[in-house]
């Protein structure tokens, strides 16, 4: 991103930045907001704050990390002023739901093969394409992501939807790489389980 162009008043540079970053900002804002309208307002407020602060941006973080951090701060401030309970105040807490990512009964409990699958894991590639509606498949994923606890949702959104690096996610959320991986692990497994339920419905339809 051409920061100088942005400071100079280059509208094309600004449009590019908005197109590039707005989807991620909206996805983040939605996690922190009670309604879609509040999320959109938060995003707009963020852009205003970005412009006010851009001359002071020193490039210690990447531009998008810096902008996303502004959004999170605004979203938190709004939540506090509206007396809303924040979805979370620290990032470590909400992933400690204590649930194993796979129900223990999926594995043999005893015998020489204890810890191995008790029932086979299906090869999704064997399910005929015709029964898999791509749109439906994506819909299942989107719905499950929306149901995740906030930390898992934000981590999987930034890493797997937006394609951010571990380093950038950790810097934005101020968490350790290990904690970030735990959240990612849980999030991916919950989405997998949702797809597995969907797939077993689909295979039962034959």
């Amino acid at each position, binding site marked *: 991103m051409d920061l100088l162009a942005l400071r100079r*008043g280059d*509208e094309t540079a*600004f*449009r590019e930045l*908005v*197109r590039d970053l*707005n*989807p991620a900002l*909206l*996805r983040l804002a939605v996690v922190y907001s009670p309604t879609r309208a509040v999320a959109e307002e938060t995003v*707009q407020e963020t*852009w*205003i704050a970005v*412009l*006010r602060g851009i001359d002071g941006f020193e490039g210690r973080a990447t531009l998008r990390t810096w902008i996303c951090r502004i959004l999170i701060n605004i979203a938190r401030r709004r939540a506090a002023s509206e007396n809303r309970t924040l979805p979370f105040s620290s990032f470590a807490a909400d992933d400690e739901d204590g649930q194993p*990512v*796979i129900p223990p009964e999926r*594995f*043999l409990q005893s*015998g*020489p*093969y*204890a*810890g*191995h*699958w*008790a*029932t*086979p*894991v*299906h*090869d*999704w*590639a064997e399910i005929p394409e015709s029964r898999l509606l791509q749109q439906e*498949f*994506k819909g299942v*994923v*989107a719905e499950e*992501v929306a149901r995740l606890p906030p930390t898992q949702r934000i981590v*999987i959104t930034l890493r*797997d*939807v937006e*394609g951010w690096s*571990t380093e950038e996610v950790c810097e934005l959320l101020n968490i350790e*790489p290990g904690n970030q*991986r735990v959240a*990612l*692990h849980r999030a*991916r*497994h919950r*989405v*997998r389980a949702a*797809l*597995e339920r969907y797939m077993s419905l689909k295979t039962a339809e034959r």
Partner: protein
Amino acid sequence: MENAVIIEDPPELPDDLPPAVQAICQTGDVEEMACAELVDRITDYLEGVLGPEVTLRLNNHLATCDSCEHYVAQLRTVIRTTGSLPSEQLTEEAEDQLVDIYRQWIAERDSE
């Protein structure tokens, strides 16, 4: 520094095990890694942060366990599908509104 990996013969399955169970676990490396451990470590594996020794154990397991192979393939499908979710672009109107804010900011700044 690294222990040699010894792949032993699989233990004999008890005769009374239902055929379905026998069909699942033909890994022959129960000493090495159980499927449950593979599941626990899979994100670290995909993220490339497992040590070389564990990576080797995991690869050995994966090479012989169909269910785990399918499992990892499922996770890759999850990652691919999550990455293909449509991103929401601003309406032209909303984008123009932001550009107006930008123009206003430039004008105010330049008049200072």
